[in-house]
């Protein structure tokens, strides 16, 4: 029997109607580095959360070290020797390294008082055992991102973890930091630890892992020895067959430029890595520009910037020739911005207020009669949208009583009610069933037919290939490809997305005449 066996794991999130894991079998041998790869929403993180006790599976069993393991919470996992380093670090910035590491199992003086000296010594000892040189007295805020990650790893080693799970550990690191992390992991392997690493970067899989499990849509596609499989094949396994939706997409001539993004750069305060690196593109009327990429490569940041929720560090955004750089959402809405966000439950809607209250935000001023809401007008409007978009649910009911697909329809209905000539869709069909997705695709094409410009940000390649006129691929915050959507294979886009090809040279747009 393998070191770790997860058998028949099924996890369903009923609230969002998502099957995250379906009868997943997963096993890890002792002392190997095992990679799990897959697109967003493939179920990698859920599977690891189940293993670490952060989620309870609806079905399935876990065997660890030959025995059946009951993991109800992370403490149970730690006790068994399983540790996890999350994508977003869980450290207290004002505390020292030592204080962060010992938190929860602090050494005590006289059975009661926190022993700071002893913590420092013990943490230093553990770190040096594994060949890390850190000053346990340093505070977290003084560290670089790579060092913070090291602290997370030391935190787990301090808890005498034998199996270490790393959830997308490289997403926040620079190239050099990635190399350092890999050296660390190889070293840990030498010292007898077992490592599971979640990633969607295939070059990293090749570089570090012994075996790789590929997941797609909540299921395991295959398990291979890394040495026997090349990146191209992995990429094919990850994205699957291209499902072309047969839409009657008529040929439309591109019109004038509606939106222009010029050399936009975004840097997060205190981080070396650029979140958006010199991004430039144009969206014309009657055009759908599809932006493809894997999560963490700048798609979300591009969405935030264009939606007026985040200011750029450098560069310009023009709408119909007028400068709209760094206008906030309030001002953009006044200009008629329409935007269907990726995070539809938190940003796109308010679950605790009624369906009609959700339908009127951003244009609620149209329903006022001397400062007071004209309830009849609101009601008529809401009923109209409900019928036109065949939304299933009462307009006075709270939004959370609707299904995921219907919530997205409410958001879509509201945004399309605006007369904007430019609309952003971000992950418009993520987690939705086929029927709802089809409906949304029809709507997007309808908008294009009306001569409006559409920016479709999506990690779903089928969606991009079926709908977009122009495809932009982003990798590590940069545009790595800009192609007209003519006879492009899914594999090619996949290779750009995963950073396997880097043959696209973006010229910096010269500031001309202003």
């Amino acid at each position: 029997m393998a070191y770790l066996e997860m058998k028949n794991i099924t996890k369903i999130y009923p609230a969002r109607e998502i099957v995250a894991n379906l009868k997943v079998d997963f096993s890890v041998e002792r002392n190997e580095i095992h990679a799990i790869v897959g697109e967003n929403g493939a179920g990698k993180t859920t599977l690891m959360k189940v293993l670490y006790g952060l989620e309870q599976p609806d079905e399935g069993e876990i065997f660890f070290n030959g025995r059946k393991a009951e993991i109800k919470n992370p403490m149970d996992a730690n006790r068994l020797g399983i540790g996890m380093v999350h994508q977003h670090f869980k450290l207290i910035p004002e505390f020292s390294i030592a204080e962060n590491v010992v938190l929860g199992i602090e050494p005590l003086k006289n059975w009661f008082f926190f022993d700071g000296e002893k913590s420092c010594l013990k943490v230093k000892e553990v770190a040096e055992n594994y060949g890390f040189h850190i000053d346990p007295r340093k505070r977290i805020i003084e560290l670089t991102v790579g060092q913070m990650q090291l602290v997370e790893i030391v935190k787990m080693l301090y808890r005498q973890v034998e199996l270490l799970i790393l959830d997308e550990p490289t997403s926040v690191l620079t190239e050099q930091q990635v190399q350092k992390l890999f050296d660390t992991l190889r070293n840990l392997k030498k010292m007898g630890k077992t490592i599971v690493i979640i990633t969607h970067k295939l070059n990293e899989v090749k570089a570090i892992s012994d075996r790789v499990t590929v997941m797609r849509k909540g299921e395991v596609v295959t398990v291979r020895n890394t040495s026997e499989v090349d990146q191209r094949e992995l990429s094919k396994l990850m994205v699957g067959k291209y499902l072309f939706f047969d839409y009657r997409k008529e040929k439309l001539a591109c019109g004038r430029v509606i939106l222009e993004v010029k050399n936009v750069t975004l840097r997060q305060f205190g981080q070396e890595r650029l979140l958006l690196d010199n991004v430039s593109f144009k969206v014309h009327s009657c055009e759908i520009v599809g932006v493809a990429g894997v999560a963490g490569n700048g798609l979300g940041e591009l969405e935030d910037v264009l939606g007026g929720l985040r200011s750029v560090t450098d560069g310009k955004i023009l709408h119909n020739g007028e400068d709209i750089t760094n206008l906030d959402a309030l001002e953009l809405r006044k200009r008629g911005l329409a935007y269907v966000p990726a995070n539809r439950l938190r940003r796109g809607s308010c679950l605790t207020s009624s369906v009609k209250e959700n339908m009127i935000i951003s244009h609620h001023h149209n329903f006022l009669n001397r400062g007071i809401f004209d309830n009849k007008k609101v009601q008529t409007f809401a009923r109209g949208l409900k019928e036109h978009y065949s939304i299933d649910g009462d307009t006075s009911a709270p939004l959370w009583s609707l299904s995921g697909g219907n919530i997205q329809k409410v958001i879509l209905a509201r945004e399309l009610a605006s007369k904007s000539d430019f609309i952003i869709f971000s992950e418009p069909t993520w987690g939705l069933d086929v029927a709802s997705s089809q409906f949304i695709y029809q709507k997007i094409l309808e908008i294009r037919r009306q001569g409006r410009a559409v920016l479709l940000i999506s990690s779903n390649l089928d969606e991009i290939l079926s709908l977009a006129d122009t495809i932009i691929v982003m990798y590590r915050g940069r545009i790595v490809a800009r192609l007209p959507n003519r006879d492009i294979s899914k594999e090619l886009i996949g290779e750009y997305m995963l950073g396997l090809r880097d043959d696209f040279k973006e010229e910096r747009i010269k500031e001309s005449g202003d």
Partner: protein
Amino acid sequence: MIRLKKTSEIIINSAGLIITLTVAFLIVVILILLLSSEPVKSIYYFFAGPFINKYYFGNMLNVSIPLIFTGLGIAVAFTSANFNLGGEGQTYAGALITTVVCLWLPQANGYVGGILAIIAAIIGGAFLAGLSGYFKMKWGTSELISSFLISSAVIFIVNYFITGPLDDPSNNLLTTYAISDQYFLMKIFPPSRLDISIVLAVITAILMVFFLFRTHWGYEMRMCGLNREFSRYGGLNVSAYMIFPMLLSGALHGLAGGISILGTYYMCLKDVTAGMGWNGIAVALIAKNNPLAVIPAAVFFAYIDAGAKAAMLHSDVTFEIAAIVQSVIFYLITAQALYTFLKYRKRTA
């Protein structure tokens, strides 16, 4: 846009409150049985006291008036996810400002002076709470902490004026000079102290419902309270709704203080409004931030208070026992309301 809840929903929602009330009253009975030598009489006055004559009944309603205002003040801030913990200071400042304006205005001006004094109190309260909102917008300071700190300082400043420059040396109490009787609010239920301002309190609550559920400011405020990111995305002026609800909340607290002077006390005694701010929070919690429910919640608080006073006068219940009994009820009810509130916030977060 207001949705009427189904009766069954209301019953389920109130089940917890009813159980808590029952437990609280049982504890009261047990405490009195233990501590009083004439328990039957004590319990009778505790529970029925406020209803045995017009005087007690009217006074009970009178006590509820400032609680309605402060309860509304807290509810309106809560609705937009702002927390005003400075109610004590804002109310106290309102009381002092009203007194000062009444003392300072030239004689014989009738209603005008009273109205001016109340408006001044409203502005004063709004300013104090608005400061916290401004700090939050400007520097991200937690309004919960800053409103509490500002209020604590204000209480000492008001105390200084009452015991210092405005102190009436001819009076044995620590108090300012009394205001002229032309400013007194009309009594409507003699011989009790109940005055006309209860009508204003009820109207304010009704206006508040209208404001929150029918006007666009109310809508935007509620949306900001329910989901700030959604509001920002939807193009609402999120930072304005950090200040505006605080201004409104402070205004209602100032009003509570001003009304207490013109209606009940006629002079600014030391600690005249003590407790009004804190109890307003409890009232709003019990009312689940529903402005109309604030009225019965405030009356309930006044009822407990009146019962304790009646029991003290008519039986061997001492002030200390009455205070213990009162606090047991307050703690249980507030804890229950707070629990539901936190559970609700967790679900929406």
